[in-house]
Structure formats: structure tokens, C-alpha cells
């Protein structure tokens, strides 16, 4: 999972700039952002709210077109919505009218897989996230943590190159969040998927990431990249080690600097 120079990156953002036209004028969400993600790597992006981290994810997913620069997926520029980048949303985004099985089988269904095949695949991925027995439940009957597991298995059933996670555990309670973090680590280790994970929780980023990207306040660009050298597997106890606290303090200082900086910039206006 180490970063080596000769491996072609799965994702490469080059001089990425995104601006929005608002009533108050042009808003620059991202400016000259450069970032590479290697195959099998888990990269977490932290930053103050409004720093453009969700904007970045939306560009990678193909929901947003860059104003300038580009994002390459395995060497090719992303144009239009990109199913090879499977998105996990904070609000789970499960189809409430479909059972768990049909939700997970949705990607294969769109690809034209036969009913038998796609159900078989769906059953496999439901089992991977430990939800066997709930195939015929509707999302509304499940807890938040279970719904996010369904969303994870729905994304995996579509066999994406990259998992894009947009603060997926932010709406969950602390206990469930930790369980799901471990679950995600396990699934990622088993499948070797590349993960781009956005969060504002530094603890979460430290537990999950191989590398941790701190973004600057708006306009967003990469401020610092940490190679996260915390030993794996990272259970609960890693959070009590000196190294964890040292990293957390350093990152917190950086993020705080940005928050304070953007606040004084606002006041000056």
C-alpha cells in the first residue's frame, strides 16, 4: 500500500480549478489542486467545512466539470458521470422502494445482468457486509449503520475502481461509526479497492488512511500531505498511542490555522 513513483495513479488531479457563479460573484471552490492516488491506497481528505472537499469528490465522480485542469482516472480524463468511481453518500441514498437485495443488485441490473446472476452477486456482497438475513427488508426498516452497510455493498457490487466516500459516517452515532470504520478497513483490505475518503473528523482520517491530505480553506488546494505511519491493523488502542496524538495535534493545528485564517479573511471583507 506504499506510495511509489513508478506506479500509474488511479486518480490524478492536475491543476484542478472549480468556480461557481453565485449572486455575489464568482466563487472559487478549488484552485490549482494537485493530487495523486495510487492503486489500493486509502487517502483521506480533511479540511474545514466549505474548503471544497465535497466539490473535489463531485468532480471525481463526474457530477461536476472542472473550470480548469482535469482529473484522470487510470490515465483518462473524466468526462461525465463516472460509474467506475462508486460513491458512498452521507445520507446513504438507498432507494426506499427497493429491498436490500434489489438495491445491491441495481448496478448489475443496469449493466444487463440476468436476474439470477445479479441476485447471486448481490447476495455475496450483502454477506460481505454482514447483512445476510436482511435481503428482503426495505431500507426504512434498517438502522442508519445498517443502511450505510447496504450502500457500501451496493457500491461494491458495481465493482468500481475507486470508492468515493463523502463523510459517510458523519450521521452515525460514535459507537456505530467505529464499527463501520473497522468494517470498511476490512472490506478494503479484502478487495484491494482504492478509497478516497472525505471527513472533517481527524480521528477518523487517522484510523483509515494510508495518506492524509489537509486542504486549505477556500479556495481549496492541498496544504499538506501526511504519510500516515500508524501501524496496521488499527484497532481502538491505536487511538491511545503517543504517535496518534502527536499526528492528531499537528493536523489539528493546521486545520485550525485554516479555519482562523478564513474567518479573519471574512471579517476583513
Amino acid at each position, binding site marked *: 500500500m506504499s506510495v511509489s513513483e513508478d506506479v500509474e495513479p488511479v486518480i490524478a488531479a492536475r491543476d484542478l480549478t472549480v468556480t461557481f457563479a453565485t449572486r455575489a460573484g464568482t466563487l472559487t471552490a478549488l484552485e490549482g489542486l494537485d493530487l495523486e492516488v495510487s492503486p489500493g491506497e486509502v487517502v483521506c481528505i480533511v479540511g474545514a467545512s466549505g474548503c471544497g472537499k465535497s466539490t473535489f469528490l463531485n468532480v471525481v*465522480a463526474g*457530477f461536476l466539470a472542472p473550470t480548469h485542469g482535469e482529473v484522470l482516472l487510470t490515465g483518462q480524463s473524466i468526462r461525465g*458521470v*463516472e*460509474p467506475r*468511481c*462508486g*460513491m458512498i*453518500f452521507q*445520507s446513504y*441514498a*438507498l*432507494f*426506499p*422502494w*427497493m429491498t436490500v437485495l434489489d438495491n445491491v443488485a*441495481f*448496478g448489475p441490473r*443496469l*449493466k444487463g445482468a440476468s436476474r439470477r446472476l445479479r441476485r447471486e452477486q448481490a447476495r455475496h456482497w450483502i454477506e460481505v457486509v454482514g447483512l445476510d438475513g436482511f435481503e*428482503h*427488508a*426495505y*431500507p*426504512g*426498516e434498517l438502522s442508519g449503520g445498517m443502511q450505510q452497510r447496504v450502500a457500501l455493498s*451496493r*457500491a461494491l457490487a*458495481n465493482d468500481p475502481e475507486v470508492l468515493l466516500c463523502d463523510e459517510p459516517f458523519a450521521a452515525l452515532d460514535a459507537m456505530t461509526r467505529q464499527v463501520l470504520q473497522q468494517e470498511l478497513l476490512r472490506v478494503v483490505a479484502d478487495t484491494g479497492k482504492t478509497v478516497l475518503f472525505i471527513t472533517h473528523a481527524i480521528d477518523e482520517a487517522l484510523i483509515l488512511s494510508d495518506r492524509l491530505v489537509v486542504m486549505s480553506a477556500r479556495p481549496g488546494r492541498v496544504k499538506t500531505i501526511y504519510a500516515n505511519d500508524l501501524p496496521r491493523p488499527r484497532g481502538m488502542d491505536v487511538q491511545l498511542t503517543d504517535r496518534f496524538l502527536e499526528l492528531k495535534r499537528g493536523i489539528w493545528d493546521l486545520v485550525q490555522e485554516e479555519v482562523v485564517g478564513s474567518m479573519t479573511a471574512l471579517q476583513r471583507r
Partner: protein
Amino acid sequence: MTGLGNGAELGLWRGLVIGALGLVVFIGGWELAVRTGLVDAFFLPAPSTVLARMLDLASGPDAVLWHDIRMSATRVLTGFLLSALVGVPLGLLMGMSPVVRAALGPIVSIIRPLPALSWIPLSMLWLGIDEQQKYAIVFMGSFASVLVYTTDATLRVDQTLIAAARNLGASRLQVIRFVMLPGALPNILSGLKVVLAIAWTCVISAEMVGANSGLGFRIWTAKEWSDTGQVLVGMLSISITVLLLDILFRGMEQLLLPWQRGGVR
């Protein structure tokens, strides 16, 4: 339509018992008021009299009441289905396409505030007092509402779900089929439920003005004869028919929206 007092927060049985008690007190008080002479039976006949009158009108060789209910219900359902058949697809289109929405918006805004009653003169001049005229009244009275409810339902489909489907590889057509339609369905159905009640007011008005059958006609003729008993029978029949149709509609809703049955698998 029956949004009032199903007593869900009291538990099913307690709610039902209290509701039944309320009904008994109301009808009992009414009966008593008439029997004791507090209210003149000519202006307001006792419930027992109304019931006897109802049985009378519903039995016998002509059984006019059944005929009236059948006529009114047929008119309502025909007009309602016609407006749903045209309004739902058009509303979906308006919800999905800003261009269609902009083009039809002003027309809908002009038609929508018109009460069904205001269509009666034109429709009579064009269609006489045939069945078609009744369908037309119901159609004109409910069509714009179907359109507005459906457009609204389509616009309220969760954008994140659309994004999720696109992310999983859905084409625009697949998004419509797998996300927009099922996502809008619950709100379309609750809109149609409201429109069905509107359709009833349309048909009753139309029958009062120009018809020779139907519940509206029955009430209006009874009034000409100062037959308050029959007026009340007609009104009661409307209530019962609408309630029954509502129950039917709810059953259909449960069938179509199994995921909304609230925790019951």
C-alpha cells in the same frame, strides 16, 4: 380526506371506542332534540326517520338510491380517470423538463383557480346535459390539480437518489424508470386522493344544475319538494360513498407502496 381523528395516538381500540361514543352521543342528541320537539321535524327529521327513508329509497322495484349512487360514482370515476390519464403523464413531463414547465405553467395557473361550477355554462352549451357533460365538468375541475400535484411530486424526488443512480451507471431513461417514477409515486397517489374528493364536489354541483339522475339531482329535487328527509339521505349517501372509495384507494396505495407499510414486513 379522513385526516381527522382516527385516534392513532390513543391506540387502535381505544380510539375506535371513543370515536363510536362521539357518534352515538351526536346521533342520540339529535334524535332526542327532534323527538322532544326542540327541533321541528319538518326542518330536520330525526336520524331514525332519515334511516327509514334511506332503506325505503334503496329498496323496492326502482331502488332509486342505488341507481343514483351508481350514476354519480360512474361520472366521478370516469372524469377522474380521464384527468389522471392525461394529467399524470403531463405532470411528470412538467416536473422533469424546465422547458415544458415554463411553457405550460401560465396556462395551468389560469385554469386552476376556476371552480368546477364556472365550467357548467360552457359545458352545457357545448355538450348539453349528456353524460359527456358530467365527465367534462369533473375533468375540468380536477385536471389542473392532478397536473400540479404530479409536477410537485416529480420535483420533490430526492436529488441524491438521482445522483446515486447516475453514479451506478443509470442512463437518463433508466433514471426516469427506476428513480423518478417510483420516487414520485407516493406523492402522486396522495395528490390523486385529494383530487378524487374534488371530483365529487364537481359532480354533485353538475348534477344539481342539470341532470335527471345522480345524488346531486336527488338532493336538488328533494329540496324542490321540501323533502328534508330525502336531502339528508342524499348527503349521507355521498359521505358513505366517498368514505368507501377512500378505503378502496388506501388499499390500492398499500399494494403499490409496500415499502411504506411502516416497519411491517
